């Protein structure tokens, strides 16, 4: 690969990492904003109580409940972020495609919501494969971005992950419905598909886009 091509690929990888980090940090900021507003309200209520206004237990329960919910929400966001960050620890390892899909759908929800598209998980069964987790996440994120870009406002895009029906130990089948994915994938997604020795196909069922992942990807499989 030429130096320029290498730089472009590296930049694309970094852009993906940056997009995910920006989306996650935005989500965390929102959580902080809700907690900040709730904590501020508790402070106001306590100041008023000190001046003699009686405290309403229901109000306190409502605000503290909101703070607890937001802490749980923040905890889940940070846990997802941590899982994502550790995906670069090893080049190739055993992963469950369903879990990776679920992670990327959760991480992408806000990006989709910004375009008024909802992402949903349909049937997801355990699909253990040996692959490069980072490239798999990158590919799934790219597919989700593409689906959102091609989905109409207000629509729902549904993803499924199941073992390959013909030979369950031969890999996994990912599908997407609710958005039309172009037959020709953008260059970056083509590169990732090759890197994972995967195979993409559209229209095998009405409007469903399918990605087949092999059971095992070697460390240099499909490397450009």
């Amino acid at each position, binding site marked *: 690969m030429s130096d320029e091509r290498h730089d472009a690929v590296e930049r694309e990888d970094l852009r993906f990492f940056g997009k995910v980090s920006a989306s996650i940090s935005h989500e965390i900021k929102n959580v902080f904003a*809700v907690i900040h507003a709730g904590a501020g309200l508790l402070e106001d209520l306590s100041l008023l109580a000190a001046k003699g206004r009686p405290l309403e237990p229901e109000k306190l329960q409502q605000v503290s409940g909101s703070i607890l919910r937001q802490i749980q929400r923040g905890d889940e966001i940070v846990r997802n972020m941590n899982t994502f960050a550790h995906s670069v620890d090893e080049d190739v390892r055993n992963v469950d495609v369903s879990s990776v899909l679920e992670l990327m759908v959760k991480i992408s929800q806000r990006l989709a919501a910004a375009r008024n598209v909802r992402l949903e998980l349909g049937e997801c069964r355990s699909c253990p494969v040996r692959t490069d987790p980072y490239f798999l996440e990158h590919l799934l994120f790219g597919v989700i971005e593409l689906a959102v870009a091609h989905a109409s406002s207000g629509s729902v895009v549904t993803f499924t992950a199941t073992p390959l029906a013909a030979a369950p130990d031969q890999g996994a089948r990912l599908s997407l419905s609710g958005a039309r994915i172009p037959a020709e994938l953008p260059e970056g997604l083509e590169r990732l598909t090759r890197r994972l020795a995967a195979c993409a196909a559209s229209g095998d069922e009405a409007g469903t886009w399918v990605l087949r992942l092999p059971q095992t990807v070697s460390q240099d499989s499909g490397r450009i």
Partner: protein
Amino acid sequence: MSEKVLLVDDETEFLESLSERMSMRGMNVSTADTPASAMRAVEAESYDAIVLDLQMPEMNGIDLLKFIREKHPEMQVILLTGHATLEKGVQAMKLGAMDFMEKPADIDVLTEKIKKAQARKLVLVEKMTEDKIREIMTTKGW
């Protein structure tokens, strides 16, 4: 005179807590959790200040800001965002936002900005009324 404020954000728990805090400070607060309901609210009522989240489903805060500025230029918009960048701030101010704040916003700072918004709106409405009277007088040849 109490400030009339519309809070717009898709985080409903944020809306509930912040609107209550603002009400405790004597403001008359309404809320909208979607851009569509915010558009309906500004068509139905006149607000001194609209505190607007920049990122929302359906329509982002910038598009909503454009709508408000076009339909009701006297209403003052304060944008709230998770991450304030210089570019976003400059864009918002160019489009006529009165101010731009990062979440979580300090209630005292926000209150001050809302008071300024009310004063600014009063001056603008006065000027618009004067312009209108001048226009009528010119038309009538008085």
